[in-house]
């Protein structure tokens, strides 16, 4: 099972809306470096968050204590380092001169916890977890009538990116760190939930530089002209796409709109361009450290995700507003006339049954205790009147909670996984082997006892391996083809075990002769009658390599296998028993090749490999080879 989390590819060092100085001080490391778990097939993919946390948490921690706290909370403390050290590791010592030597904690965050992606959210989460703070209450307020900001969506956006949401952070005060964190969070959301801006793109603007109402439109690129962020003059959208085609970061987003006849574009009342989502913002409305009022717009293909992104930004950064944890509503006017107010900042009530919760986890806690455990996880809860229920308020910062089972998990995390009593399920079942695997293992044992050594080769290979190198044309082979291989070695699923064994021979030329190798494993064959259009077939393959081919040795193995499978030799070549039948096959030497027929069915082939095959696999000695389908014998 398991093993993939929402993956965030590399965390990009650039942000659409960031200025140069911020890019340079970004510290996030590519998550790909954290993928070593893949090895286990257990991919926990996380966003690294850099954290200068000690003073914020207001307590003296040892590194170990902090690591334990994180572990309990479900986070992994990746390393304790310094900014200087991190830059040195990534860019070399010469780049790190002058960087801070303050201690930095690097923490990995589960990919669905958008609320922990920035320092603000993480610290809040930990403080609430420790019981030092109660969960904040987020709210959206409507300004006086007439002064609400409006975003008008035109019908043309349907052609490219139909959804938009917006909100205002009023009277905010950034400092260097929070400003950087604001930019950083947008970048992480872009990489993760926004799927590299394809699903959602965020634009943040200095509201005081523009005048509403705003219009979200879609126009032909040649009709769009503005001064983009960090550019010193105006370009048309066509020119910008050209300009950015070599841009280290932006080029990866161009494909999202490149071939569309119209590009998304947001204007203010006076025709000033705020942004051209999902590529770039306008320079005019750029935010700075001194920005006091932030206009946030998100354009999207997926409205749910746009709302999550907007809520997350508001929840994390409204704490810097004069009116803490509060955002100002914007109205989004759709072409059909509907008006929707954002941000939703919706609180949802889930009522969970205490007995069900306890049973799910395997604990027996009273209702009030469970309410407390949940409140620690930022899910404010109270015991319902009926006493056997807890009413849980899911805040807009916890969009990951979509079912009661998410609440059960938070109870379990809060209780501590390692405090849960170990029990053995009473499930009484009788074990059984999959018959094909059982037969395979019995045959493997026997073939090894017959003096052959087992090899283990890849199921994927190149087209040449199964075709050209065996004297065949790939078009004649019912192979399963892979559409997106990264290298030639993964073009097709193997249709025969022979190439893998020959490659193993080639890599082991220093072993003494004779070499006797075998493999019992699956090949994959295209088959229209199969549910997915292809099926596995379990094969047994063995070869002998020596100064002479040793056809008789391979033949002896076949006879032995048939004896073990109680298939008699058929002297009159009829429907019972097995026999050999001469055949021509391009992979085998003429007159040295035979089909194996068992109970009237061709189950495989054996013979002396053709010298061309030997040469193509970079071998020097003759090889006799046998490959049969073992499935008829299950």
């Amino acid at each position, binding site marked *: *099972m398991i093993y993939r989390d929402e993956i965030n590819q590399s965390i990009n060092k650039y942000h659409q809306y960031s200025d140069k100085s911020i890019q340079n001080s970004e510290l996030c490391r590519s998550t790909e470096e954290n*993928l070593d778990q893949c090895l286990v097939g*257990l991919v926990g993919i996380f966003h690294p968050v850099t954290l200068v946390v000690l003073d914020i948490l207001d307590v003296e921690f040892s590194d170990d204590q902090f690591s334990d706290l994180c572990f309990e909370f479900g986070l*992994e403390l990746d390393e304790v380092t310094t900014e200087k050290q991190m830059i040195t590791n990534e860019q070399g010592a010469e780049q790190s001169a002058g960087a801070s030597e303050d201690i930095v904690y690097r923490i990995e965050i589960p990919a669905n916890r958008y609320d922990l992606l920035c320092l603000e959210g993480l610290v809040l989460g930990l403080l609430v977890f420790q019981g030092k703070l109660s969960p904040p209450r987020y709210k959206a307020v409507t300004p006086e009538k007439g002064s609400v900001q409006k975003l008008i969506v035109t019908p043309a956006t349907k052609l490219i990116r139909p959804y938009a949401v917006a909100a205002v952070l009023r009277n905010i005060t950034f400092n260097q760190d929070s400003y950087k964190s604001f930019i950083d969070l947008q970048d992480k959301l872009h990489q993760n939930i926004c799927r590299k801006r394809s699903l959602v793109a965020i634009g943040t603007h200095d509201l005081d530089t523009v005048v509403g109402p705003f219009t979200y439109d879609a126009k032909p690129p040649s009709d769009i002209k503005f001064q983009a962020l960090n550019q010193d003059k105006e370009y048309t959208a066509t020119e910008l796409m050209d300009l950015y085609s070599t841009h280290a970061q932006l080029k990866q987003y161009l494909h999202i709109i490149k071939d569309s006849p119209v590009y998304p574009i947001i204007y203010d009342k006076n025709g000033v361009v705020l942004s051209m989502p999902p590529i770039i913002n306008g320079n005019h409305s750029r935010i700075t450290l001194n920005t006091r009022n932030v206009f946030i717009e998100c354009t999207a293909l997926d409205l*749910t995700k746009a709302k999550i992104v907007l809520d997350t930004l508001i929840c994390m950064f409204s704490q810097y507003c004069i009116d803490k944890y509060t955002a100002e509503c914007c109205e989004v006017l759709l072409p059909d006339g509907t008006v929707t107010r954002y941000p939703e900042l919706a609180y949802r009530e889930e009522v969970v049954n205490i007995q069900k919760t306890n049973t799910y986890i395997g604990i027996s806690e009273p209702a009030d205790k469970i309410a407390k455990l949940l409140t620690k996880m930022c899910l404010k809860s109270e015991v319902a009147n009926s006493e056997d229920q807890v009413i849980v308020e899911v805040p807009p910062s916890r969009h990951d909670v979509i079912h009661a089972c998410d609440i059960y998990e938070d109870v379990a995390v809060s209780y501590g996984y390692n405090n849960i009593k*170990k029990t053995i399920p009473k499930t009484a079942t009788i074990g059984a082997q999959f018959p094909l695997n059982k037969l395979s293992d019995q045959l493997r044992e026997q073939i090894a006892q017959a003096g052959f050594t087992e090899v283990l080769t890849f199921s994927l290979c190149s087209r040449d391996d199964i075709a050209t190198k065996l004297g065949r044309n790939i078009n004649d082979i019912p192979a399963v*083809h892979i*559409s997106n291989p990264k290298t030639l070695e993964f073009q097709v699923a193997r249709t025969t075990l022979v190439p893998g064994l020959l490659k193993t021979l080639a890599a082991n030329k220093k072993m003494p002769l004779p070499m006797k190798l075998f493999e019992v494993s699956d090949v994959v064959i295209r088959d229209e009658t199969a549910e997915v259009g292809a099926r596995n077939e379990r094969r047994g393959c063995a070869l002998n390599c020596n100064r002479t081919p040793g056809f008789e040795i391979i033949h002896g193995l076949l006879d032995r296998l048939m004896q073990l499978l109680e298939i008699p030799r058929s002297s009159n070549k009829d429907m019972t028993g097995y026999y050999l039948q001469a055949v021509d096959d391009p992979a085998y030497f003429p007159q040295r090749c035979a089909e194996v027929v068992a109970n009237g069915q061709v189950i495989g082939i054996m013979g002396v490999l053709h010298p061309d095959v030997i040469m193509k696999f970079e071998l020097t000695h003759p090889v006799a080879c046998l490959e049969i389908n073992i499935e008829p014998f299950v």
Partner: protein
Amino acid sequence: MSSDLSEKILEYVDQLGSVDTLDLAKHMQVDHQKVVGIVKSLQAAGDLITVEQQVSKRWELTDEGKTVVDKGSHEFLVYSAIPAEGIAQSAIMQAIPNARVGFSKAMSSGWITVTKNAGEPIVARKVDDIKDTVRDHLQLILAKSPDEVTDEQKQEYKKRKLLQEVVTKSFLLGKGKNFATSVEKPETELTQEMIASGSWKEKNFKPYNLDSLGISPERGHLHTLLKVRDQFRQIFLEMGFSEMPTNNFVESSFWNFDALFQPQQHPARDAHDTFFISEPKLSTKFPSDYLERVRRVHSEGGYGSQGYGYEWKIKEAQKNLLRTHTTAVSARMLYQLAQKEFHPAKYFSIDRVFRNETLDATHLAEFYQVEGLIVDHNLTLGDLIGTLYEFFKKLGISQLNFKPAYNPYTEPSMEIFCYHTGLHKWIEVGNSGVFRPEMLLPMGLPEDVNVIAWGLSLERPTMIKYGLNNIRDLVGPRVNIQMVHDNPICRLEK
């Protein structure tokens, strides 16, 4: 003939108590090498005789040395050939053999002198009387009194190729523990004839050399990783699990992702991570009402879930791929289970899965996934933890730690860490969790039925167990067959 000689030698030893082979050879008038050969065979016959190697060195004159003894040294000859009035150097050089050596030695001994007369060098005697020490010394050596010549002088003559040092190896023989004057050749092996005739009772047998290695048995071998797989299968079977039919590498996105409530925009469904199939590109056969329930739970929710709130597309679900986990098969098994009257089950599988990874020392595009799951009424997270302790105990691991984690189809999810007593640290060994209701309920499983499951890779524990750093040393065509030959039996609990 040689047995005659052996007995002769033994007689000598019997008479003399101890004797050198060189003396024996002279005495018996046999070549020394031959005597040595016989001694070796006597030695092999048990403790008949004791044999002690002797090394002796002696000085012998070379042919040139012998000439010196006969005629005098080269310098003597040069000196002697010079008349009282002197002689032209060229004349003397022609007249005397080895005159060049003789001349320079006579010069350095101060016997002669060279003067120039009208440009031609003339040699004359410098002293009236000389003593030919070289010849005297060589005569002493020839007369077996080499000790009267100093080592320094001998070395000097050796350098002049007048002398050579000869090393002779011989053996000093004595009586052994089982000394006898006749040899009975010891037998090397017990034979069928000896048993039949009873002759083994009278025979001596040559002892075995127990310090040598035996002959390596003729054999085949099972592959290292698959021996570990056998052990894992055994563990699951001991615990009452049934093996799932995982012999289907090609899977539809529907069973691999959608059935597991993994949303269609999930990054794992990206071509960067998953091998998609161009031929056969799409699957078309799905259970249609189940498909509809899956669509609904993704896009609209239901079964107590909010859903993901996006437009679910059949096209995305149809895409064929190489399965990224065997959980695709688990989903099929659970679906089948839900189609009949419910009964609890325990399933396991160990088979290949595929990831479109960038390859390195620890990552391959395909690896073996070990997966276990239990489906029953009201299973708890505590049941999962308890089961995992039992499972890992069978792998020789008793200290576990569980960390909250995230996975789209399990909730709660736990990463499994174990304490590695060799490495003295906690290492991640697997993932586990309780399958989400959004996955189970659309299949039609009863509401109180839970599924607890866990998974790990087969390669990683194997690499840790055998101390391998590169996965290519374990899997694939480049594996060293010698490693497979030498690999011990797999006992995970040890």
